[in-house]
């Protein structure tokens, strides 16, 4: 079994799994505790427009994805807070709008769009070294920003009104957090693909909430869960010749569902 590690693609896949889990653990915790899963799903899917843009311009789709996902995060944050329509309606519209743009841009791109399936469903076994460096850079940005704004994000997620009265701009902080989510999406896209990102973003964080009441510890635990499940999924993918995004999500969901079934069936003890 260990001989598979000699392959470059396997080494890259393991690195990608670890780097993705770091961003996913940290940012996923905010997504879960602030209950912004829906807007995160919106940013993820709208980012498909960025993939389309990359193909259309003939550049690495990731370089279309980065500005586009940041742009969608900011637009979605502003529209959902300020527009005179219900927040979930606004998000739902922008979600589809981004995807529609992506579809048109890809349709207009002459020839065949290689790797399109990778961006939709992920394929951790084809991550090139250049992407690993990109992921490493994005992880560093995320860690630095969260380190600097840890207290501020905690206050924002706990009580926006109070954060505002403290003289901070809750809106700017929220937009910054959405931008970090956008960068996390870039990091995760090759691993599980647009369609499955939300599962990876929420499951490790939600699981970790069950084991600790501390925000920082939740992040560490979520990273460990993420690494464990993505490596498990990676090996399942290799040995059963199945798409990695799906095997990662399946192994994670299986444990997640079993965990909550077990938890739900346990007799409630009065404490």
């Amino acid at each position, binding site marked *: 079994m260990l001989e598979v590690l000699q392959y470059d693609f396997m080494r890259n896949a393991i690195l990608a799994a670890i780097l993705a889990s770091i961003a996913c653990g940290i940012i996923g915790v905010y997504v879960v505790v602030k*209950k912004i899963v829906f807007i995160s799903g919106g940013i993820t899917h709208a980012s498909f427009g960025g993939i389309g843009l990359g193909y259309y311009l003939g550049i690495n789709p990731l370089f279309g994805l980065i500005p586009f996902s940041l742009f969608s995060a900011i637009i979605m944050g502003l529209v959902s807070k300020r527009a005179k329509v219900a927040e979930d309606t606004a998000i739902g519209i922008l979600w589809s709008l981004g995807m529609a743009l992506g579809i048109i841009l890809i349709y207009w791109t002459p020839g065949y769009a290689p790797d399109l399936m990778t961006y939709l469903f992920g394929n951790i076994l084809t991550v090139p070294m250049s992407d690993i460096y990109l992921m490493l850079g994005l992880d560093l940005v995320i860690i630095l920003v969260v380190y600097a704004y840890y*207290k501020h994000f*905690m206050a924002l997620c*706990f009580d926006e*009104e*109070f*954060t*505002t009265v*403290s003289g*901070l701009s809750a809106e700017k902080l929220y937009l910054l957090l959405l931008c970090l989510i956008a960068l996390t999406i870039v990091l995760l896209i090759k691993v599980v693909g647009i369609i499955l990102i939300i599962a990876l973003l929420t499951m490790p964080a939600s699981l970790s909430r069950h084991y600790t009441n501390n925000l920082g510890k939740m992040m560490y635990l979520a990273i460990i869960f993420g690494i464990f499940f993505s490596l498990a999924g990676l090996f399942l993918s290799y040995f059963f010749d199945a798409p990695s995004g799906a095997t990662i999500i399946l192994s994670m969901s299986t444990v997640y569902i079993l965990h909550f079934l077990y938890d739900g069936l346990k007799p409630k003890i009065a404490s």
Partner: protein
Amino acid sequence: MENVIDVKDVWVSYDGVRVLESVNLTVKDKDFLAIIGPNGGGKSTLLKVILGLIKPDKGSVTLLGGRPTKTRKDVGYVPQYHSSNLDFPVTVWDVVLMGRLSHKGPLQRYNDEDRNAALEALKTVGMLDFKDRQIGELSGGQKQRVFIARSLVTKPKLLILDEPSTGIDSRMQKEFYELLNKLKSEIAIVMVTHDISAVSVYVDKIGCLNRKFHYHDDKEISPHDLEVSYQCPVELIAHGVPHRVLKEH
């Protein structure tokens, strides 16, 4: 010293329904103002206008000599309904320390001064023993005390309290009013309350808000005035009111 709060001719409506109508209000340094009024009278709205959380349709608000959005960081605020997310993973200690956030930039950690302020505030509200508890595990009254502590650690120049005694037991309430009484020698306090009988001993002014605002520099408001002129329901204040303050009807 200039006024702590200056509200001039403020009008607010929600979706065309008028909630505040030409409200004028001045609070000077070390004033203690109690605001009473029926549910839906616009009391919480007025406090939010003062804090710059709601923009009035018309009129102006000056808070601590400046625009509320600039100066509100020096105000301790205890809201009526908590927008806070109560299954959030934070302890009482984390929540009280959050009160120091207005003094911190990015990268700056909380220091001993912050921790001492938090310790003091928790002692003051009698919640020190609960400092490592999850905020969601506390009872309503205990949570309220934690939020009061959070408003105190900012070392505010003005305290704005929206029905702060809701859910707090009577012994703690008395201690809380005694605390406000001590604080008022140093800072101004504005408090919305239904518990006029308890606070009338401490406050300098009582205002009644029912879309329009009426207030008195002296505490001798007759129930007749409240009921007839201002539509402030008397049952809010009639029960157990000391004669010294409010005449019986």
